[in-house]
């Protein structure tokens, strides 16, 4: 559904000399959504984000926000704000002065600046640390300050460049919940660059998977994970086996593969190459006669009722309906 507030990328291209970092991508981001740009390093996702932010020039194409082409405007005139990887807080300024920096640049008077900064700091629950210097804050606190600093410019689109990668795993999960909550409360479009598919699945209303400078697939997390269009997406999103079946490349969910106990019909036979205990389940890796690797996720109770050892040969079975055909 198109609305006038869309952010739209039109034939967006970025070249560095002869290398193409972003190759002619077209996409419409719906307003007030949480979008994750997902892909391996070097796929062009960060360059795309930086072009939207205005920190990278556009080689060709346009970026339309709210009906106007913003691709040649300076960063602050675009209606976007960027939250940098490792936050880029000004180390010589207090938390409050960091947040009110943009207002100071605009020449807003001191009292108004302080008042507005405190309001934003309240929003991210950091008001009590307003007098601290960034170096005195933990990673999660720095992230909140960076968020407040980006949001004070009242952007339509907030661009987040790997915002969680500087945090430890526990904090990462907590902060991503906060990001999601903040997006819902503010109603701003968040575009979040990440290489972690779990992060994208957990956060996004829409996942845009990029690879080799193009968009490989875009859709809701469930669509992208459940119906990968290409082999790359299936492998990158995880949880899938990519096998040749009936002469075609197909994706098969790892939790849809069963181990056929003696007597039950098996679809293929394979020899077990590895067993990995994962707590609630066990990942059984085996190699088929075609030399393809298949992982079966077996519930832990079922596995330990009939344990399997590496080197054994077993039959693997799955329902025909669980096979998902890949386009490429």
């Amino acid at each position, binding site marked *: 559904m198109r609305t006038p507030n869309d952010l739209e990328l039109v034939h967006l291209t970025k070249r560095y000399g002869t290398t193409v970092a972003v190759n002619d991508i077209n996409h419409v981001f719906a307003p007030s959504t949480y979008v994750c740009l997902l892909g391996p390093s070097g796929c062009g996702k960060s360059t795309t984000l930086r072009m939207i*932010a*205005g*920190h990278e020039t556009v080689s060709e194409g346009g970026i339309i926000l709210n009906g106007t082409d913003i691709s040649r405007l*300076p*960063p*602050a005139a675009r209606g976007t*704000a*960027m939250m*940098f*990887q*490792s936050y*880029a*807080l*000004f*180390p*010589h300024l207090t938390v409050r002065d960091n947040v009110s*920096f*943009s207002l*100071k*640049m*605009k020449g807003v008077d001191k009292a108004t600046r302080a008042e507005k900064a405190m309001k934003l700091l309240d929003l991210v629950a950091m008001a009590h640390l307003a007098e601290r210097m960034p170096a005195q804050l933990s990673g999660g606190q720095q992230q909140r300050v960076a968020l407040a*600093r*980006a949001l004070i*410019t009242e952007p339509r689109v907030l661009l987040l460049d790997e915002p969680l990668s500087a945090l430890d795993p526990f904090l990462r999960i907590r902060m991503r919940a906060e990001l999601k909550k903040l997006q819902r409360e503010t109603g701003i479009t968040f575009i979040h660059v990440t290489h972690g598919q779990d992060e994208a699945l957990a956060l996004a209303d829409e996942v845009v998977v990029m690879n080799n400078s193009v968009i490989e697939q875009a859709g809701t997390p469930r669509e992208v994970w459940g119906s990968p269009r290409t082999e790359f997406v299936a492998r990158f999103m995880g949880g899938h086996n990519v096998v040749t079946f009936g002469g075609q490349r197909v994706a098969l969910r790892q939790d849809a593969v069963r181990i056929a106990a003696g007597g039950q019909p098996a679809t293929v036979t394979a020899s077990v190459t590895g067993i990995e205990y994962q707590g609630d389940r066990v990942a059984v890796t085996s190699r088929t006669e075609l030399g393809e690797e298949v992982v079966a996720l077996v519930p832990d109770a079922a596995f330990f009722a009939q344990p399997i050892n590496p080197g054994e040969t077993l039959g693997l079975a799955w329902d025909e309906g669980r096979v998902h055909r890949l386009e490429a």
Partner: protein
Amino acid sequence: MSSSPVSHTMSESAKGWLLASPLALVLGAFLVLPIGMIFVVSFWQATEFSIEPAFSWENYEFLLTSPVTWKVFLATFKYAFLTWVFTLLIGFTVAYYLAFHIRSAASQTALFLLCTIPFLTSNIIRMISWIPFLGRNGIANQALISLGVIDQPLEWLLYSDFAVVLAFVHINTLFMITPIFNTMTRIDHRLIEAARDQGASGWQILWSVIVPLSKPGIMIGSIFVVTLVMGDFITVRFMSGSQSANVGRLISNDIGLLQYPSASATSVVLLITVLMMIGIVLRFVNIRKEL
């Protein structure tokens, strides 16, 4: 373990003292002792033909009540201040250009090394080389006359305060460039992007981000330049044609006349003055944190 038992039984603090002792000995013998000596001698008495150990405030009394001393100290401050202003302006600009406008690290290093080339010859040679350039019939005057800018040679180009400050700036600017460049290269470029993202203009980025974050380098460079200029005597002598004096020349003249006690007293006063100036600078920035 077969190594000597001493190293096992020696306490950590003894090891620490032992490790620190070579440097302590060098500094003690070549820094603390001579300064202590100067301090002691500054209380001695001298006549035209003898130096007598004594404890007398005579030298200080004479020094601090003489209008010549005050004039010379004032001149020294003036040179230090002017040199500081110009080296700071030039040093900051050059460092800024190197750190933010030169993209590749290789050309940064190459251009920085270019800045150090004048240091391949001695200070004095570089100073003297100004004389044929600035002299009455020097290159500068001749060029200006032939260009029709002036019709009389400019007298103030050489043997003047202008020449003194020019030589000081020429000799000392690198001491400003180096520490500022060093702190600037450590500024995260994302901070500048963040400032631009927040709507800061070029000048605002310079004033609100780059200058404050370069402050440690500016302070270290300032200490270098000010102490070097405050302690100099040869530049002032050559470039002013012996028409101006600074504290260094006062001391050097006293030494020439074998008036060691008086020279020592002047040195002690100069040392205290410079230490006070550095003390003030250090109140503004924690240099140890930045190194």
